[in-house]
């Protein structure tokens, strides 16, 4: 697609995604994921009280050290703790949720009827493939964002602007990787492809529509910078208001993740159906000739 066509496709996908808001079923998978996140958040925040104190507290001590078990450090560490648990959650539960959502969005766009349970079961029947793809994306994203950090530690004092630039570059790379894999789950769920074929197909689609695919991933993700920026002021929030207020910040983060996931998956599914329809039509016409 030409660049103008890609922008047209981007805005058309978002427009279609907004129409999908009429289907409340499409909200359900994300609601389940957000509920799981809220559950995790309250488990982390309430680690000191029974019955959580019997297993969450030791796990936190093992993973993050003694410091996070003390007030108010427990709340200051909440963002890091939640981030790590959410990584696991996004692979184990998120993959299934995204698969279900793709199924529901696709049915809406194709004017088919599909219930939540049916979509969930269909996605669950491809669970291992979904988890595998999600895990690969997660590992790559973590490698790209975490590995350079030890090499950049000196820059914080010596060249802070350079550090900011490198961090932005690292974020760009992470988004680029996510863009390359973004059609893999639709391929698995809607075309029942194997892992390698789905990933290859996703790379192909993303590279043919780089601007649309990248912006579909990157624009909603930019919203996540809001809670990140707020939680960087955790110390100030804790001392000026109350450490417990950081739970509200985390809830805001969960709400934004909800929105980001909905917008991204809705638009990606629409774009996927559109571009793969073209492919199917091309293949049909070639066969006809």
């Amino acid at each position, binding site marked *: 697609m030409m660049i103008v066509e890609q922008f047209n496709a981007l805005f058309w996908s978002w427009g279609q995604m907004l129409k999908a808001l009429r289907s409340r079923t499409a909200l359900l998978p994300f609601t389940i994921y957000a509920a799981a996140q809220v559950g995790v958040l309250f488990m982390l925040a309430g680690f*000191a*009280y029974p019955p959580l104190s*019997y*297993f969450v507290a*030791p796990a936190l*001590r093992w993973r993050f050290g003694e410091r996070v078990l003390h007030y108010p450090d427990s709340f200051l560490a909440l963002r890091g703790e939640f981030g790590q648990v959410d990584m696991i959650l996004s692979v184990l539960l998120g993959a299934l949720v995204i698969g279900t959502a793709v199924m529901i969005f696709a049915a809406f766009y194709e004017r088919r009827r599909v219930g939540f349970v049916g979509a969930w079961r269909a996605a*669950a029947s491809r669970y291992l493939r979904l988890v595998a793809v999600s895990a690969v994306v997660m590992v790559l994203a973590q490698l790209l964002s975490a590995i350079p950090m030890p090499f950049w530690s000196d820059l914080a004092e010596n060249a802070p602007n350079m550090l900011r630039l490198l961090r932005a570059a690292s974020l760009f790379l992470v988004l680029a990787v996510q863009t390359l894999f973004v059609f893999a789950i639709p391929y698995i769920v809607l075309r029942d492809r194997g892992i390698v074929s789905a990933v290859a197909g996703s790379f192909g689609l993303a590279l043919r529509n780089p601007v649309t695919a990248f912006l579909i991933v990157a624009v909603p993700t930019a919203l996540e910078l809001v809670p990140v920026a707020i939680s960087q002021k955790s110390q100030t929030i804790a*001392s000026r208001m109350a450490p417990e207020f950081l739970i509200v910040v985390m809830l805001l983060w969960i709400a934004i993740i909800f929105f980001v996931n909905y917008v991204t998956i809705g638009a990606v599914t629409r774009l996927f159906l559109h571009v793969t329809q073209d492919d199917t039509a091309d293949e049909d016409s070639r066969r006809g000739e």
Partner: protein
Amino acid sequence: MTRRSTSRLALDTALCFAALAVIFSLSGCGSDGLITERYEAERMAWKVRQLERAVRLNPELNSEEMRSRILEGYREIIAAYPPAGEPASLEGDAALIAGIAGRARLALAGALAEADEYEEAIEIAESVWERYRFNRGLAVDAALLVARIHSAAGDWERSVLAYGALSRELTPATSREAAPDTRILRAPLRIALGYQLRGDSENAARWFGEARSYYERLAGEWQGTPTAEAASGILAEAYTYEKRWREALDAYDAFDRAYGAEHNRATLWLRMAELYEKRIGSPDQAREYYVRVVDGYPGDPAFATAAVALAQQAMRDERFGEAREWLGRVLADFEDEEAVAATARHAVALSYEMEGRWDEAVPEYRALARDYPTTMFGLAALLHVADHYSEVGESGAAATAYEQAAEQYERIARDYAATGAEFAALNYLVETRLKQERWKDAADVLVEASSRLAESPAAPEMLFQAADLYETRLSDRASAASALRKLVGSYPKSEWAARAGERLEALGG
């Protein structure tokens, strides 16, 4: 994947999490069962500390209600966490809870003492000393607080008992390698100094003797350890407090031989040099130590101190060239260290002045005021130049110099508002205006300064001085009365308020 295998996977995952939970609970990583109580105690303590912090940072919040809330907060912690029955065996969260409760008791005692409620304060602080001895840091703080409260309550003898108990019942270090607790080490010296401050020379002498014996014993018993090193240092300090300069020098010398090292010798030699120079009156020996510092510590702040001292010696001996050579080295190496550089630059200017080379001194003073305007020497420089012209009868030059000085002080007061420099600059501005005999300007500056520095203890005096100028120099009774009314209204409890009231009455209003 079939529906059945999906359910199986979910069940397996749930079982894995449950197994992990059991393993964590049973392993050494598990909680000791008091985590909830400890966490609640930390939360309560943090909330009270935040209130205290808010009051400290914002004096407007320092109301009776707020103070009551703080006291109530500490009382709640104390009520919720009474002292443990078997404190010696406390560990983990139980020890932490006891620590929080002990700290709350000390904070409450401190707050009560501040409100002059000494009896309850002492009772609470003593309970910490008696029942929280297992927490060494807490026990030391408790003993010191008991001593301080007794002292504030005017019962110095019981304060002495608390300091004495501290040094008698707790050793300053727990092992030969550990750094000593200097709060314990200094306790006997505090007693001696307390008596000295109260003019009780007999008891002061007795306690200085006790303190010295204590330090000598520790230096002997703990030889070669950080505890002995600290004790030897404080022993020498004790001699200086007693003004026994020779013995102090001998003690510092012994300290140097036993524990002198790269990290402490510069300070030690400077101290010995000062004793030789200012107390013994032996500049040659002082010079020997200053030279040692200069040779041994180039680039170190101690070098600057020693070099300036050598320059001052040279100036006293009228060796001005040599003095400026030393000062030049300081300025070359410490140009960015404002206080050091300003001291050196002032000494250079002074050396020209002492040499009678006033024309060369003036540019140095002006450069000092320009480059280091907010330092003590920088602030005084321009007024000094003006004073000099005035003293030698050059009234035209003096008038110009005073005006330049006033402009400089106005600029500093404006550019460095809300800093210590603002206060100093306004003081110099008043002094300048008084020397210029510009009484109205001086009085107006005083009134303005009292508003800008309303929280300063000097504000009431400024208003009184302004009123005096309005009345006696300008015969402006209305302005005088206005300044006095402001004084009485804003600072009714200050010592100046009564005098202002009388003056106001005399003015008829």
